[in-house]
């Protein structure tokens, strides 16, 4: 089995709301001072799922791919330290400011260039934009079947055996290879690399492919190729100033709250 893990580096989702700033002129998040970007947590879980399959199937290989800035090397190195074999960075100004479609176009082109890929594992969504569509768009680009929001994935006679999380329970399904799977947090915690693995990963080389290496038209990727246009990114107004219920006793506070909710006709 050769599994590709798609990994994205994102601003740390644990950034306190007070440090979260948007540049209105560019519609971009201003990187918070002193808070390093991180590997999207769902992608780390996708890597864990891929590594468990690698460990259960001798001769398997895991390649981690990331489209992003030069700094995304760190996300790739993290997955290499977890146990992935090879890393590919897709870094080119032509890829910037695209949408899910152009991201998937670039990732799918890289997967085609690798050539011998049996499965692609992605996080269920990137924990910055939370769209949850790149994995499916890669599947459609490659013409492969897909299963999303997996809490379990193993190899089986039919290809992959997947357990999906649905809103009202779980679904077991089989997908023939090659296939794309997006993995959810219900899968479990990703492993934490130990120091020797981190040292070893630091020595592994990461291949960098540019738009020309992938045979892509620069006009079909990044901002030029995107179909979803971001018009405005803004920080929503919170509910306003909270009104704290006065009262010497919990009973009095509760009575005050019920009175408010009745007056608002929501209780």
């Amino acid at each position, binding site marked *: 089995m050769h599994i590709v893990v798609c990994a994205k580096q994102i*601003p740390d*989702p*644990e950034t306190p709301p007070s440090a*979260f700033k948007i540049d209105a002129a560019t519609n971009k998040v201003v990187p918070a001072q002193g808070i390093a970007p991180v590997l999207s947590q*769902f992608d780390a879980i996708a890597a864990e799922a891929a590594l468990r399959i690698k460990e259960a199937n001798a001769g398997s290989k895991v390649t981690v791919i990331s489209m992003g800035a030069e700094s995304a090397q760190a996300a790739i190195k993290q997955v290499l330290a977890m146990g992935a074999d090879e890393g590919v960075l897709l870094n080119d100004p032509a890829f910037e400011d695209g949408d899910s479609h152009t991201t998937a176009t670039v990732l799918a082109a890289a997967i085609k260039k690798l050539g011998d890929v049996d499965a692609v594992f992605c996080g269920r969504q990137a924990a*910055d*934009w*939370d*769209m*949850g*569509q790149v994995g*499916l768009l890669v599947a*459609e*680009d490659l013409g492969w*079947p*897909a*299963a*999303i*929001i997996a809490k379990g994935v193993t190899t089986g006679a039919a290809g992959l055996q997947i357990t999906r*999380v*649905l*809103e*009202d*329970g*779980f*679904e*077991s*399904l*089989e*997908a*023939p290879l090659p296939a794309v799977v997006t993995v*959810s947090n*219900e899968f479990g915690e990703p492993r934490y690399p130990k120091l020797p693995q981190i040292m070893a990963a630091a020595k592994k080389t990461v291949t960098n492919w540019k738009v020309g290496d992938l045979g892509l038209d620069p006009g079909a990727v990044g901002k030029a190729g*995107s*179909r*979803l*246009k971001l*018009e*405005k*990114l*803004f*920080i*929503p107004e919170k*509910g*306003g100033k*909270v009104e*704290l*219920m006065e009262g010497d*006793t*919990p*009973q009095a*506070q*509760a009575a005050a*709250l*019920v009175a*408010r*909710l009745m007056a*608002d006709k*929501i*209780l």
Partner: protein
Amino acid sequence: MAHNILVVGEMADGAPTSTTLELLGGAQGLAAGGTVSVALLGTGASAAAAKAAGASKAFVSDDAGYDAVKAEQWLAALEAAVDQAGADVVLIAQSSAGRELGPRLAARRKTAVAMDCVKIEDAGGLKFTRPAYGGNAMATYSVATSPAIATVRAKSFEAATGAGASDVVQLPAAGASRTNITGREKAVAAGLQITEAPVVVSGGRGLGAPEGFKAMEELATAIGSEKAAVGASRAAVDLGWYPPSQQVGLTGKVVNPDLYIAVAISGASQHMAGCSGSKTIVAINRDKDANIFGFAKYGIVGDWKAVVPALVEEIKKAK
């Protein structure tokens, strides 16, 4: 501008789901003289079409092959419906099915989808607004290609009322799917689902023990079991205090109730991503500096162990 809008319907108990009716309500508002159609697939679809308020036309197949959603089968039917409806807008619920259908339909029609929208308005073209960055930001998009597709969060629109679709067009039976469903297991708390409930009472790690959820259930019951459901923060679910199906947040359910009561929840951004669209948030927390108070309209600073029973009593009195 007039829009021909196709709503991808889902059914429960032989009728369109409440979210489907909301999408139809939203579509009525956005069509501006265009047509509103609904696609309904699976057992009972023809009968459900008559209950699809707000749709003038329904594209249906009663084939049971559609009952358990296999995206590839649905996509073939939906592509036919998009063509026949002449749809330039497609609205889909942000559901288990919708999360898969939206992106794949967009890919097949060489267009784009805005996922998890909470607002769609016509302001010199349709603008789709959705939360991003764990709810820290909102993003407004336009779609440069046609049809513009959006998946929409429950409770984002008022439900359509009135007569269902009178013009019913048959779609082909379910075709092939490369994926094969081998089993399904229901795992939900009994009663009203948190995504559908007008009132959600959620408990967090601050409850201190799983027994705390008993008090949450008592509060929900006092408000009314027909309108209130109990949710939980990811921390509480990860501790095994409440089932994953009840988790509210970025990786759980996104709820949009009229009233969200957050008890002993600090209000981390990943939690707020699941509830910040609530019309009114009430926070009950011992820590007056908790992040949740920044989102709440009303708050009580105090120990939930004293406040929640008092609240139960006051609600009972008021009824």
